[in-house]
C-alpha cells in the first residue's frame, strides 16, 4: 500500500520507487516515535505521505512524468469523451496522468481517501488539516479529476462547490 500511495502521488514508477524507499526509511527511523495513539496504518501513511511529498519536492524541477506539455489541456481518456460513468470506468484512462494534474493538496487527499480508504478524520490527522478541509479537498480533487477524465473542463462557476 505504501508503494501504491507513492505511485499515485508520484505518478510514475521511478519517482514512486524512490519515494517508497524514502518512506520506508522514514518509517523505520520513526518507529520509535510511534506512540500508539493512532492506528499504525494511519501513522505509517502519514510518514509515507510526507516522505513521498518530500521526495517529490526535491525533484520539483523535473517535469511532470508521463505527461508532455501538449497534453496538459487534453482529455486523459484515450478514446472518445465518454460521459456515461460506466464508459469512464471502462475506458482506457491514463489515471496517473490525470492525477498528476491535480494540485498536490487535492491529489494527496484523494489518494488517501480512494486508494488507502482512510476516512476524513484519519486523513485530517495524516496531513494535519481540519476534517472540513479534507472534505473540501477531496471534493474539489474528484471534481477536477472527473472533468479531466471526461475531457470536460467547465468553468468553475458552472458547478457549485461549497468552498472556493
Amino acid at each position, binding site marked *: 500500500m505504501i*508503494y*501504491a500511495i507513492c*505511485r*499515485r502521488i508520484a505518478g510514475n*514508477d521511478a519517482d514512486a*520507487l524512490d519515494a*517508497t*524507499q524514502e518512506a*520506508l*526509511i522514514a*518509517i*523505520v*527511523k*520513526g*518507529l*520509535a516515535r*510511534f*506512540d*500508539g495513539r493512532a492506528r499504525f496504518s494511519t501513522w505509517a501513511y502519514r510518514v509515507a505521505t510526507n516522505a513521498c511529498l518530500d521526495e517529490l519536492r526535491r525533484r520539483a524541477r523535473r517535469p511532470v512524468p508521463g505527461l508532455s506539455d501538449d497534453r496538459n489541456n487534453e482529455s486523459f481518456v484515450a478514446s472518445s469523451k465518454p460521459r456515461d*460513468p*460506466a464508459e*469512464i*470506468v471502462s475506458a482506457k*484512462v491514463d*489515471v496517473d496522468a*490525470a*492525477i498528476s494534474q491535480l494540485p498536490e493538496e487535492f491529489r494527496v487527499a*484523494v*489518494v488517501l*481517501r*480512494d*486508494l488507502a480508504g482512510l*476516512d*476524513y478524520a484519519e486523513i485530517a490527522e495524516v496531513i494535519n488539516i481540519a476534517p472540513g478541509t479534507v*472534505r*473540501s479537498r*477531496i*471534493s*474539489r480533487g*474528484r*471534481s477536477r*479529476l*472527473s472533468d479531466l*477524465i*471526461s475531457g470536460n473542463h467547465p468553468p468553475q462557476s*458552472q*458547478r*457549485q*462547490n*461549497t*468552498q472556493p
Partner: protein
Amino acid sequence: MIDASAPDDEIISSYLDGEGSPSEVARVESNPIWMQRASELRATAALMTDPVPPLESNVIDQMISAAIGAGQVPANVTDLSIARRSRMPQILTAAAAVVILALAVPIIRSIGNSSGESDSAATSFPTENARADTATSDDQALAESALAPESFSPAAADSAGSSMPPELPPVDTASFDPLPALLPDAIDVQALQEELAAAVASDPRDSTSSRAMLLQPEITTLCADALAEFASHSALLNSPPMPESFTDFSLVSMNGTTNLVALIQLEPGRFIALLVDATACVSVSQISVAP
C-alpha cells in the same frame, strides 16, 4: 437556496464517502441530477483503485533491507562525534529501541530487587569472576551477570576514563545481523515504555548511582566515553568490544529522565544493550542479547 440543477460536489462527494449529514444524504438522494453527478464522481473515485503495477518480491526485499540498513547508525565512533557536536537527540532505529526497552525492563526490575547485593560488590568486580560468569552461554546467566554495571571500579575509571584505545582493528559491519531478527513478535512499545517508566520510578538509579561510575555531568560528550568505558569493562565480555561495535544509540526519555541506550554487537548474533542515565552519565544496566 441551491438550484437543484447545479449539484454541489462537496455534498455529493461526502455523501459518497458516507460522511454526509442526514440532511445532505436526503438532499442528494432526492434529486436525480445530483444522483447522476454522484455516479460520475463514484466512477472517478473507482479509477483510483485501479491496481498499481505490483513490485517484484526481490525489489520489495531490497527496499526493506535498505530501509532497515539506513535506519541503523553506521557502526563507528564518528557518529558519536557528530552526535556530540550536534547535541541533538539521537534518532534511534526503531528496532534498537524496541529491543533495548524490552530488555531494560527486566534488568531494571532486577536491579531494584537486588540492589543490596549489588552494593556490596559495587566498587570492584574482579575480571576473573566476570569472565567465569560469561563462561556459560545461558542467556539468563548472562543477564544476571549483566546486573553489574557497578563493575566499573573507580580505579578503572581513573585509569581508563581519560583515554580511548589508541588503535582499533576494523570491524566488518557487513557481518552484522539485521536488527529485526532480534525483535520479538508484536511488541507493544507503548506498554513497554510505561512499564519501564514505572520500574524506573520504583527504584533503581538512586541505588545504583552510589556504586556506578559517575562521570562528569556533560551528557553528549561524556556519555559516549562512558559507554566505551562501560563496554571495555563489561563483566560479560570475553574481550571488550571496540567502539566501532556500537551499532545504535538513542536518548530515551523515561520517567522524566533522559537515558542513553546503546546496542553493541560483539559478534554476529551477539549483542549487548546498555542503559545509561544520560543526565549524570551513570551506567544503569547492561544485558547480553543472544537472539
